[in-house]
């Protein structure tokens, strides 16, 4: 213990040294003023000291768990409580009634969260199941959003008419991106997808005549409900339920696919491309389906996103967005559906609920991402593939 404290003190000292020029000094050389903010140094030191104590303690524990309990720590699947019917029933009841009890704001951020869940599920197919690192996923999100917006703007298409078109265009985009990059591996794939994402955004930004450029496209309609006129509140609630449906559909489809021939081929590809090929799996086709289906979901929620904000602009689809979606997948645990949902709660809802921290909000957000990865490098939920039932075979 004593040793630990000494160690933490040394680390504290190091960090104080490191932070000194930026945290303490504030220089304005044009007005020739130097301000010393010693109190900041003290506070930084205090924080670092306690964090480093905890850090070292948990890091040493992590090693232990890492060796002894690699598979059960945190496995929420396994919890009987979560699997139990009453719990699920109450949970879904609460979830369904949320927009009716909570203020509109919560409905609104839950909609955002569910959009990210679907995005996470879509990217999960590409990265988590098929093992293809995609850093430009927001591009498909943008294709979805802009398809709806442009169809509405130029042809007056409603939400429902645009939705399938938006989804198919995004899907097509995924396949088109997939074809040239099939040969690329790992990080080269990552940078090309990053480039692709940026190119899409830049085109949206610069092709003023068609996309309205950086000003974006305003006044997009909310989804219609058999021609019933909905006021603002009820249309938000309606959107909430639609997104629940959309999310459930995404979960169902991901689950069904993942336990089908296609899903097995994805996972086989992720685990070992050469062995997969030797088992008769067509890698080209398998990769393209992964890209296509992944992009499909982004396209769908892209339209929802545009409709929810009644507005799209290119700045909603930056690299930062792709990075957050990727973080959702990795933080959740690659390939795990429950993981995606949990990670969305952390990465999308937490910043919303941390608003009281004001300017420290994003600082803490960044720190949480690092800490989660350091202490839980395989993600929150370890993806355990469901087992096939063969007991009733002869």
């Amino acid at each position, binding site marked *: 213990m004593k040793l630990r404290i000494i160690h933490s003190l040394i680390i504290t000292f190091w960090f104080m040294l490191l932070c000194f020029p930026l945290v303490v000094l504030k220089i304005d050389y*044009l007005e020739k003023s130097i301000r010393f903010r010693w109190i900041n140094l003290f506070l930084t030191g205090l924080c670092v000291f306690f964090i480093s104590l905890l850090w070292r303690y948990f890091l040493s524990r992590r090693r232990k*768990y890492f060796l002894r*309990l690699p598979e*059960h*720590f*945190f*496995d*929420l699947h*396994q*919890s009987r*409580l*979560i699997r139990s019917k009453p719990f699920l029933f109450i949970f879904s009841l609460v979830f369904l009634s949320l927009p009716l009890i*909570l*203020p*509109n*704001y*919560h*409905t*609104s*951020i839950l909609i*955002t969260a569910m959009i990210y869940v679907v995005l996470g599920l879509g990217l999960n197919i590409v990265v988590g199941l098929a093992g293809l690192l995609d850093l430009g996923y927001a591009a498909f999100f943008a294709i979805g959003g802009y398809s709806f917006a442009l169809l509405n703007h130029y042809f007056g298409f409603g939400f429902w008419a645009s939705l399938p078109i938006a989804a198919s265009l995004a899907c097509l985009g995924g396949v088109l991106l997939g074809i040239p990059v099939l040969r690329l591996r790992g990080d080269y794939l990552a940078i090309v997808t990053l480039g692709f994402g940026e190119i899409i955004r830049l085109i949206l*930004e*610069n092709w*003023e005549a068609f996309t309205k*450029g*950086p*000003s*974006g496209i*305003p*006044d997009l309609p909310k989804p219609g409900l058999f021609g019933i006129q909905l*006021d*603002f*509140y009820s249309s*938000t609630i309606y959107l909430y339920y639609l997104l629940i449906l959309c999310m459930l559909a995404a979960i169902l489809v991901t689950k069904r696919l993942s336990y089908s021939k296609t899903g097995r081929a994805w996972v086989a590809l992720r685990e070992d491309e050469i062995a997969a090929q030797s088992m008769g799996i067509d890698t080209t086709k398998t990769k393209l389906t992964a890209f296509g289906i992944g992009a499909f979901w982004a396209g769908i929620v892209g339209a929802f*996103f545009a409709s*929810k*904000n*009644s*507005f*799209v*602009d290119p*700045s*909603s689809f930056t690299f930062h967005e792709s990075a957050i979606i990727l973080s959702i997948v990795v933080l959740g645990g690659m390939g795990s559906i429950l993981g995606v949902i*949990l990670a969305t*709660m952390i990465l999308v*809802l937490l910043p*919303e*609920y941390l*608003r009281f921290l*004001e*300017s420290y*909000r*994003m600082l803490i957000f960044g720190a949480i991402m690092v800490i989660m990865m350091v202490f839980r490098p395989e993600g929150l939920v370890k993806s355990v593939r469901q087992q096939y039932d063969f007991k009733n075979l002869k």
Partner: protein
Amino acid sequence: MKLTRIGVLILVLLTTLFYLGAGNAVFASDTIKIGLAGPFSGDLAPYGIPPKDTVRLAAEVLNRSGGLLGKQVQILAEDDQCKAGTATNVASKLVGEGVIAVIGHICSGATIAAMSVYRAVKIPVISPSATNPSLTLENKNPNFFRTIPHDAAQANLQVDFITRHLKAKKVAIVHDKGDYGKGLATLVAEGLKQKKVEIVIFEGITPGAVDYSALIRKVKHANPDVVAFGGYHPEGSKIVTQARKRNIKASFISGDGLKDPSFIKIGRKFVEGYYVSSPADISKVEISREITRILKSKNQKAGNFGLQAHAAVTAIFNAVKKTNSTDPEKLQKALRSEKIDTTLGMISFDKNGDILGSGFSMYQVRDGQFVPVKW
């Protein structure tokens, strides 16, 4: 098994946190809440933080002298990062917490998205900075006001100035690809075209790129009489600095995005002679001098839109005082009819919600100061 329980525990904790967050909104309180939304983190934070500071300052001062309607005023500042998606969430949050009016948002895009929420509840929204003409000119947002003139007004002034005062034949137009910058640049370009001025370059730069020397060289080769830049001061000073170093003699002209003390501070000798169109001179207005002084003592600054935000919140205070109520319809009406003494001078709003009384005038940087140009 024990560890699985930890997982469940965390889930429960998260849910609790969620409900706690929800609970906040339900607390009834005896304050008048005014919302404020803008980017307080992320790339555009420098445009959001000064309005936050000035609006809070205004509320502090007001509260010290007794508040409004006998209640204290509370400013709820929410970060929208200038993203449309976050902006609608923030708008719902502010509405849910019962704000009587909103100052913001800062970026036009975020404002347009957020208006879909505010429109439904009719509370007045006054943006200190969203200059996209469509916000007021398309009659969609009866509850929207702004304390900054929209881009078209500014663009017209610039076009006049370029053609009549600078008598330019060839103009190069550069913008920052952003909502504001490109919007303004496009309007200026259209205006110039109508006056038969040749536009030799119309191009965008990427803010934050390493340097703009390739574009500068292109400008030099086009040899324009005037370079009009649409964007904000960091890029503006970068471009003019590099241009002057490359011996480009053309006059430079920009919009209010450049009228910031930092522009001169950063640009130093290179920005001398730069023309900037900006809302009428307010440095003589007593209130704004006072505000600037107080901010400086707190180590804050008014930034691009701080004083506009102050004027906006003053207008709200005034409307509440005059109507003696917080009813949105009444507030809107009051905002349209009252003349108010603000940091921007005596202002009022026209039927679209655009500011009256704060026109644009041209300034030029001379000896490290923005000096009004007489023409």
